[in-house]
């Protein structure tokens, strides 16, 4: 079982998540070119980490659970990297097309 987290910590995490939502909304109105998506996904990743680490108590979970949580996202990274690796490299072949 987990140690009891103070209410203050939960409220601070919630506040941070709300502020980050405003930030991501505001940044999307500025044209950063290719970096818009980088910032948007970066902020989403930070928000996800905060939720997992504090709200979902992975911070105080045992190493086995921590490992599995990491493995889940690692597996999803494999899915995305290999899929995109396929699509993006198609155009590199002579006469190849993206689609």
């Amino acid at each position, binding site marked *: 079982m987990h140690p009891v987290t103070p209410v203050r910590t939960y409220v601070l995490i919630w506040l941070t998540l709300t502020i980050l939502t405003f930030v991501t909304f505001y940044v999307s109105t500025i044209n950063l070119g290719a970096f818009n998506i980088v910032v948007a996904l970066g902020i989403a990743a930070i928000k996800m980490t905060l939720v997992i680490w504090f709200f*979902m108590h992975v911070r105080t979970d045992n190493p086995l659970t921590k490992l599995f949580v990491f493995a889940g996202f690692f597996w999803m990274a494999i899915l995305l990297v290999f899929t995109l690796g396929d699509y993006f490299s198609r155009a590199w072949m002579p006469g190849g097309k993206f689609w």
Partner: protein
Amino acid sequence: MADTHAIATGHSTGHSSEHPPQLRHHFDDMHQQFDSATFGMWVFLLTEIMFFGGMFGAYTVYRSMYPEAFAATSNFMNPAFGAANTAVLIVSSLTMALAVRAAHLGQQKFLQLMLVLTMIFGTAFLVIKGFEYHEHWVDMKVPLFPGHWAWDGPLAPPQYAHQAQILFCFYFFMTGFHAVHMVVGLGIMTTILLMARKGSFGPAYYTPVEVSGLYWHFVDIVWIFLFPLLYLIGHTKNLI
């Protein structure tokens, strides 16, 4: 000799007087039972990551194929609805976390209050989503439904007529599956609330609240990614 016999009997039936009533026979103690339950829930959530991961992967491929079309189409999403729903869902995650804390501390009234608030925010999310779907329906932005799809006006470049439908299909499938998960979450919360009203939870046993919380937070995380990916692409008007 008598002692050994007592221990042996206690062990074989598994009903020693020290056993908390919620401890199942196949676990050593409450800690191990709690850890196994959270671990099991995480394994289920990993399959959920794969479920949504497939859709996110397909979305990424199509978006890199038709970046301009997706940006143009995103202008027909209403970021105000999306932002409101993000806020509502994040608050519901806070009340959920506080509900787990209250269950852990045995604060029965506060636990019930937090569960009810979580359900209210969850329902608010679905209501907002409903208004949004209705807007798309009236706006003729529902692909695959003849008579409810139209692509015209100054914001709709004619060359994207087909590709725009792809993004809207992603939009309806991804937000739709997310909404289904919200409905399931509300069902789980109803069950937990009924159990809480019977006083089932306290410092010795609050596993169901914790595990349901994991599910609720996971559904929140999916939305955290859906919001920027669906609503905020075309928000930058000068990209088009």
